[in-house]
């Protein structure tokens, strides 16, 4: 296929004041997409704002040929994107980038998301769940609103009638366990998601049911082995959160991958704008391209300044 295509908007729902879910008729992109990959989206028609916006793929329905993006309005580009309506056309490049390495079926997978970082992890959970594997999901956000739960049953999140979409419900229906944390304590654990994840590891180690208040975890391991609880971690979220997460899993020697964001130009590896510092034996570090060598990197290789 040509990696550039014009596709049609099927649906756009507002999930929270700044959060949207956009569904596109894109059979080829849906067929080729792998969790962790992104689309480079032309948000407007004019030359200002100029650049495309990289947006991670949030969900695919290969049978229907549909692909969804979950995004937060962060500037002029995404604001224009949020105005797209059913029937509008959008120019895409992609799927682009290197996605997550799929875990083996026997692995104990934990997924740690900060805010809108849930977007690409949702697709990963969809793929893992489809083969009957259950993951443990840790999702943190600032406030209740940012978990985008529908306002009322049978309503869209912006109050309109019609079938709603719930990230929480979607993850649960895929068969995964989910723990939540919020900065203001309005949902789940009062604190950061990395702290909750660390407590989860510790609670298993000590045999205490620290987490019972936040989820249905059973902690009765007499002979604790970490890799029986978590043998692989996937993370996406703000830089500070990922730095903390990588610190935790490096200390525990759990293999993991994180999906990074950086200001991006071309999306195809030509302009070298979206550089990420990674470990390099010769020079100490080198810059690698988030758009081509990423956006997913091994937790071990990222250098956090």
């Amino acid at each position, binding site marked *: 296929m040509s990696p550039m295509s014009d596709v049609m908007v099927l649906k756009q729902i507002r999930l929270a004041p700044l959060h949207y879910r956009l569904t596109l008729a894109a059979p080829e992109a849906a067929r080729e997409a792998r969790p962790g990959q992104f689309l480079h989206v032309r948000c407007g028609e004019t*030359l200002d704002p100029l650049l495309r916006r990289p947006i991670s793929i949030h969900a695919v329905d290969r049978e229907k040929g549909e692909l969804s993006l979950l995004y937060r309005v962060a500037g002029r580009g995404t604001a224009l994107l949020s105005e797209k309506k059913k029937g509008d056309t959008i120019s895409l490049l992609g799927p682009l980038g290197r996605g997550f390495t799929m875990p083996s079926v026997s692995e104990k997978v934990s997924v740690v998301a900060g805010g809108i970082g849930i977007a690409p992890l949702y697709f990963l959970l969809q793929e893992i769940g489809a083969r009957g594997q259950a993951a443990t999901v840790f999702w943190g956000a600032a406030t209740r609103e940012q978990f985008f739960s529908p306002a009322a049953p049978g309503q869209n999140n912006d109050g309109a009638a019609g079938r709603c979409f719930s990230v929480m419900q979607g993850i649960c229906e895929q068969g995964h366990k989910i723990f939540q944390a919020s900065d203001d304590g309005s949902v789940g654990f009062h604190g950061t998601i990395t702290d909750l994840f660390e407590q989860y590891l510790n609670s298993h180690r000590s045999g205490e049911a620290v987490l019972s208040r936040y989820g249905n975890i059973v902690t009765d391991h007499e002979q604790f082995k970490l890799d029986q609880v978590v043998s692989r971690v996937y993370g996406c979220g703000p830089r500070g959160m990922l730095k903390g997460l990588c610190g935790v899993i490096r200390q525990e020697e759990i293999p993991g991958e994180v999906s990074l964001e950086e*200001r991006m*130009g071309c999306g195809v590896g030509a302009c070298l704008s979206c550089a990420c510092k990674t470990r390099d034996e010769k020079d100490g570090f080198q810059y690698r391209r988030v758009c081509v060598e990423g956006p997913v990197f091994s937790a071990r290789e990222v250098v956090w300044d």
Partner: protein
Amino acid sequence: MSEATSGEKAKEKPNLVVNIGGLRLKNPVTTASGTFGFGPEYAPYIDLNRLGAIVVKGTTLQPRLGNPTPRLVETPAGILNSIGLQNPGVDHLIEEALPFLAQYDLPVIVNISGDTVEDYARLAEKLGRTAGVAGLEVNISCPNVKKGGMQFGSDPAMAAEVTRAVKENTDKPVIVKLSPNVTSIVAVAEGVARAGADALSMINTLLGMAIDIKRKRPLLGNIMGGLSGPAIRPVAVRAVWQVYREVDLPIIGMGGIVTVEDALEFILAGATAVAVGTANFINPRATVEVLEGIEKYLVANRIHGIRELVGAAHRT
């Protein structure tokens, strides 16, 4: 090459061939260095054989890590970049990038940068004897490196010295890329012309910066960067216009070209060829669309060869 004007000929495809300082290009559409990688990045989107030439990412003697991030900021109808000449070095270019491009019927122009005049001389000598290099574009105008770069391009005497050093070390066409961040771009162009340059590329990016008002600090990791994109096009067209009047060298015009109309402005102002840069990021097919647009324009206006159009705005 004849540009016959018989009725029969008018129906034929217009002649798109141009000559850039001894380098024959099958058409006038090229890529701006740093916006097109080394070619493979865009091979999934266009047939590279259709380009008049490819100008590859700026190359230095040794590999360069580049500048700290963020390296890119979007500004009104433009972008500021401070990549800092990240590149794998000339040996890697010769061993890895050139063999890929050798599959194509495509002149390869290598953009070279150095900290010292000696660096430029050594690069010219090395690439001068490398098969698969059709010409050199001398970057004396990069705003994003501490040493060399724009420093060489802002002083006519220094610009001439670098040009002379390159010319003395290669027989291949030498194209000097000029900076707009100067008091008189004509004076620099005259300097490099006297030093033996075969052609000019103009313009490089405009030095600029942007500040994050929330965090109260510069947005770019390297503080300042080079502005490109549609925002700079009028500046670039003006520069081409001025230099075309005073300096008798072919010009590759660039700076914010997105559409065929933009490219035609440059040609009418005096550019023999054009380079598409930032627009590749938005539309990977921009080069081919500009080329097809030029062909259509020539046919629609019954112009038999692109060369009739070069500098035409000066004559009407």
